[in-house]
C-alpha cells in the first residue's frame, strides 16, 4: 500500500507535484467552492487524455454553481462531502472514491480526473477519459466482400463495445487486468461463462499473471509471452482485427484477449483448423466455401513446398515429370548459369526484399516498387538468362499462395519453413523434402495451444462426429447443431432443429 491521502489539500498537492515533477502534461486546476465559506479544491488530470469540455462543463461549472445554492452549505458538510458531491453535483457517469495515492496516480495517468477537496480524506476519481480516436474502420488485413466491415481500433473500450454489441448476454464476462510494470496496459479477458472450458480460462489467467515485463506495446508482445512454444515458427494464438470473428470464437467456447493500444485481439486456443478459417467463410454459401477451404490447403502446400519441389525435380528427379514438360524445363534452363538451388534462392530472396521494401513504404511508392520489382526485374532476369522463366512462375505462384492463407502469422510460418525445405531439397531431393514434411508435421502434432492439441480438429482427442464439418469442407449452417468439441465447451448445443 502506498501513501494515503491526507486531509490537507496542500500536502496532497505537494506530494503529487513531487511525483509529477517535470511532467508537463499533468494539469493542476485549483478552484474554490462554496459561497461564504470557501473551501479549496483541486482537479488533477493528464492533458490530452481527458475530455476537457466535459470536465469544464460537468465538473468545474457545477462546482462553481454550488455558491448559488442556498441549502448546500459547505461548512456543515464534513466527512461525506465526496459522497454528496458525487450524488448531487458532478454530472459524470462514472465516479469512485479512492484514498490510495499510488492508485490515484495510476488513475490520473490513465486519463481519469482526480478531485481533491480540502479536509476530505478521500479523492473523487472521475471517469473523464477521452482522447482522439482513429474511429472504427475497415480492417486492413482481413477484408471481406460480404459481412460486417468494422474492425478493432487502438482503444480498448471501443473494442469491448464492438464485441458486446454482438453478444448481449450477461454471461459474456469481461475481466480487466493490467499488464506491464510501467506501461500498465489494460488487458481484457473476454469469454462466455457457461460455454468456455474452465481449464482453458484458468490457463489463460495463470499465464497472464506470470508475466512480469515493463511494457506491452501491442497484443503481439503479449501473444509471444503467453504462447506455448515460443521457438516455433507457427503462431499458437490467433490474432484478428475483426470483432465478428472474436465474437464467433467466444461462442465456440474460446477466450478472447483484448489489449489496449492494439487493434488486434488475441483468441485462444488456436488450432490448425481455426487458423485456416476466415470469417468470410461463414458469410458465404457453403459450397464455394468448401472449395475455397480446399484451395487454401493446397496453397499451404504450395507456399511451403513449391520452390523446394522445383529444386528437387530439376536437380534430382527429372524422371517424375512428363517427358514433354521435362524437355521444356531443360530447354528453359539451358543457358542459366546457376544450379537450381542458387536460382531459387536468388529469386526468393529478391521477392522477400521486394515485399519488405514494399511494406515499409506504403501507398503509391509501394506500388511502384511492386511494379519495378515484379515486372521489370523479373523480365530483365529472364531476358538476361540469369533465371529460367519457370522459376519466375514458381516464385510468383508461391507468393500468391502465401497471401491466400487467411491468417498472416500462420502464412509467415510457412514462408519461413519454405527456405528450410529449399535447403533440404538441395541436399536430398524429394527424400529431403518429405523428411522435412514429416518433421514439420511432427512439430505441429507436438504443439499445444493452452492445453488443446494444435492439430485439432484433424487429429485430436475428443473429436466428435460433427467436428470435421468445419474443416476441409464447411457444411451448411443447418448442420452445425453443436459447438466444436475440441475446445471442450461446457455447453455443446448451438442450435435446435425445428
Amino acid at each position, binding site marked *: 500500500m502506498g501513501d494515503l491521502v491526507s486531509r490537507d489539500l496542500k500536502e496532497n498537492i505537494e506530494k503529487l507535484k513531487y511525483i509529477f515533477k517535470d511532467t508537463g502534461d499533468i494539469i493542476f486546476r485549483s478552484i474554490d467552492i462554496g459561497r461564504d465559506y470557501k473551501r479549496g479544491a483541486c482537479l488533477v488530470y493528464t492533458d490530452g487524455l481527458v475530455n476537457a469540455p466535459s470536465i469544464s462543463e460537468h465538473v468545474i461549472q457545477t462546482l462553481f454553481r454550488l455558491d448559488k445554492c442556498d441549502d448546500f452549505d459547505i461548512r456543515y458538510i464534513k466527512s461525506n462531502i465526496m459522497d454528496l458531491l458525487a450524488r448531487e453535483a458532478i454530472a459524470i457517469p462514472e465516479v469512485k472514491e479512492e484514498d490510495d495515492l499510488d492508485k490515484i496516480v495510476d488513475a490520473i495517468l490513465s486519463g481519469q480526473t482526480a478531485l481533491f477537496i480540502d479536509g476530505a480524506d478521500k479523492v473523487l476519481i472521475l471517469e473523464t477519459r477521452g482522447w482522439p480516436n482513429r474511429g472504427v474502420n475497415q480492417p486492413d488485413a482481413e477484408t471481406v466482400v460480404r459481412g460486417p466491415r468494422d474492425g478493432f481500433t487502438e482503444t480498448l473500450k471501443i473494442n469491448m463495445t464492438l464485441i458486446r454489441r454482438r453478444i448481449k448476454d450477461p454471461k459474456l464476462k469481461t475481466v480487466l487486468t493490467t499488464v506491464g510494470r510501467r506501461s500498465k496496459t489494460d488487458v481484457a479477458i473476454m469469454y462466455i461463462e457457461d460455454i468456455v472450458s474452465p481449464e482453458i480460462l484458468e490457463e489463460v489467467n495463470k499465464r497472464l499473471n506470470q508475466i512480469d515485463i515493463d511494457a506491452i506495446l501491442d497484443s503481439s508482445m503479449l501473444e509471444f509471452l503467453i504462447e506455448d512454444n515460443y521457438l516455433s515458427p507457427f503462431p499458437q494464438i490467433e490474432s484478428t482485427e475483426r470483432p465478428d470473428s472474436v465474437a464467433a470464437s467466444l461462442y465456440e467456447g474460446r477466450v478472447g484477449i483484448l489489449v489496449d493500444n492494439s487493434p488486434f485481439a488475441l483468441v485462444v486456443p488456436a488450432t490448425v483448423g481455426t487458423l485456416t478459417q476466415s470469417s468470410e467463410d461463414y458469410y458465404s454459401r457453403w459450397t464455394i466455401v468448401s472449395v475455397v477451404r480446399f484451395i487454401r490447403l493446397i496453397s499451404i502446400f504450395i507456399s511451403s513446398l513449391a520452390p523446394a519441389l522445383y529444386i528437387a525435380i*530439376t536437380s*534430382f528427379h*527429372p524422371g517424375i515429370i512428363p517427358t514433354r514438360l521435362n*524437355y521444356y524445363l531443360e*530447354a528453359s534452363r539451358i543457358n542459366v548459369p546457376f*544450379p537450381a538451388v542458387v536460382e531459387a534462392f536468388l529469386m526468393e530472396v529478391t521477392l522477400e526484399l521486394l515485399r519488405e521494401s514494399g511494406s515499409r513504404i506504403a501507398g503509391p511508392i509501394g506500388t511502384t516498387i511492386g511494379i519495378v520489382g515484379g515486372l521489370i526485374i523479373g523480365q530483365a532476369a529472364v531476358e538476361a538468362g540469369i533465371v529460367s522463366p519457370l522459376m519466375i512462375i514458381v516464385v510468383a505462384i508461391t507468393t500468391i499462395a502465401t497471401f491466400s492463407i487467411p491468417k498472416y502469422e500462420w502464412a509467415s510460418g510457412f514462408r519461413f519453413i519454405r527456405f528450410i525445405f529449399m535447403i533440404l531439397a538441395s541436399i536430398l531431393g524429394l527424400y529431403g523434402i518429405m523428411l522435412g514434411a514429416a518433421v514439420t508435421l511432427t512439430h505441429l502434432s507436438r504443439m499445444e495451444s493452452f492445453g488443446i492439441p494444435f492439430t485439432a480438429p484433424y487429429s485430436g482427442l475428443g473429436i466428435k462426429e460433427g467436428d470435421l464439418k468445419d474443416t476441409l469442407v464447411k457444411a451448411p449452417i443447418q448442420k452445425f447443431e453443436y459447438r466444436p468439441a475440441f475446445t471442450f465447451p461446457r455447453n455443446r448445443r448451438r442450435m435446435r432443429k425445428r
Partner: protein
Amino acid sequence: MKRCLLFILLISLLFLSGCWDKVEIDQRIFVSSIGVDANEDGHMNKFNIIYEYPNINAIGKGATEDEKIFILETPASSIFQAARELSTRVPFPFYFKHVKVLVLGHEVLHDEKAFREIIDELNRDTKINKRLQILVAEGKARDIIDVNVIREQTTDRDLYSMVQDDRSSSRYTFQTLAGLISDFDFSGVTITPRVIIKNDRYIVSGGCLLKNYKHLAWIDEKENRAISAINGDIINETIDAIYDDNLISYTVTNIKSRKKVQVDDQIDVHIFVRLEGYLQGYIMGAEKPAYDSQVLKEMEKAIEKSVKREIERTIKKLQKEYNADVIGVGEHISKFQPKKWRELKDKWDELFPDINIQVSVDVKIRRTGLTR
C-alpha cells in the same frame, strides 16, 4: 547455444559433402529411344546399341535450326554398357527414365540368349519405365531410328506417339515391356509391332511373332487384326464385306470376346466374338436401302462371314504353321482349370496344333450413319 552450434555444424557437413545425386536438368542427356542391332563380329560386344536423344537447343522458344535429334551408336555388350562406352563422346551422363521406345533389329531376335539378356536388363533396371514400347524392325533398328530423324521435325517422339495411339486402327498392336514379359510368362508367345521402311518412311505394320524369346514369324496386318479380334483388343477398325455384290464397310466401335474351353480327351475351344459398330460405307442409289432391319440383318450376316473367315484362317495358320498360342487358350486353361493345366502344361506344344477351335461371330450394326 551449444545445441545450436551442433545443428549448424551438422547442416554444413551435409552441405559440404552432400548433394551426391544432384545433377542439374540441363546437364543430363535424356535418351528417348533405344535401338538394338546385332553385331556379328564383335565378340563380347555382340550388340550395336543406338541412343536417340533430342537436341534441347532446338526445342521450345527461340529454337535453333539445328538438327532436332541426335543419334549415337556404339558396339557394346549390353544396353547400359553402351552408356559407358558413349560417355567418352558426350559431356553429360545419360538418363533413362524418359526412354519411350525400344526398337529391336530382327537379327537380335534370332539369338534367344541375347534377347533374354536384353529383356532381363531392362526389367531389372530401376530407371526404365515398364511401359516402354517395344518394336521389331524388319531390318536394322538403326535405319528406323535414322528415318525417324529425317522425316520428323518434332520432339514429340513420334514413333512413340504412333505406337501408343492404337485407337486409329488395329493393324498393329502395341506391346510394352511389362506386357511382353507377362505374355512370355503365360504362354511363351507374344506379338510385337513390326516396323519396316518404305520410301524413306517407316511404317508400323503387322507384327512379329515371338516364341520363347525367339523370332518365329512375321504376321501381316490382317492376321494381326484377327488376333486382336480374338483377344478383344480392337478399339477402332473398319472391316469390308461383300453384300449384294456391293462392297460395304463396317466400323467396329466395340468388341467383346469370350472363350469357352472344354478339356476332355479332346480339347474343344469355342471362341465367341461380338462386334458392335456402324455402317461406314455402302453405295449410292442402292437397291436395298440400309435403313431396313431385314437388310441390316443380311449385312450383319455378310460381315460375320467375312470376319469369321479371316479369324479361322488366322487360327489355322497359328496352329498348323506357327504352333503359337497367342490367342491365350493355354492361359485360359491355366486360370480356369488349373488342375488340368498341370497335366497339359508340359506337352502343350504338341497339343496346341490339334485342338479343335470353333469361332462364332456376332455382328451388330447399331447405326447407319447420317443417311438411310
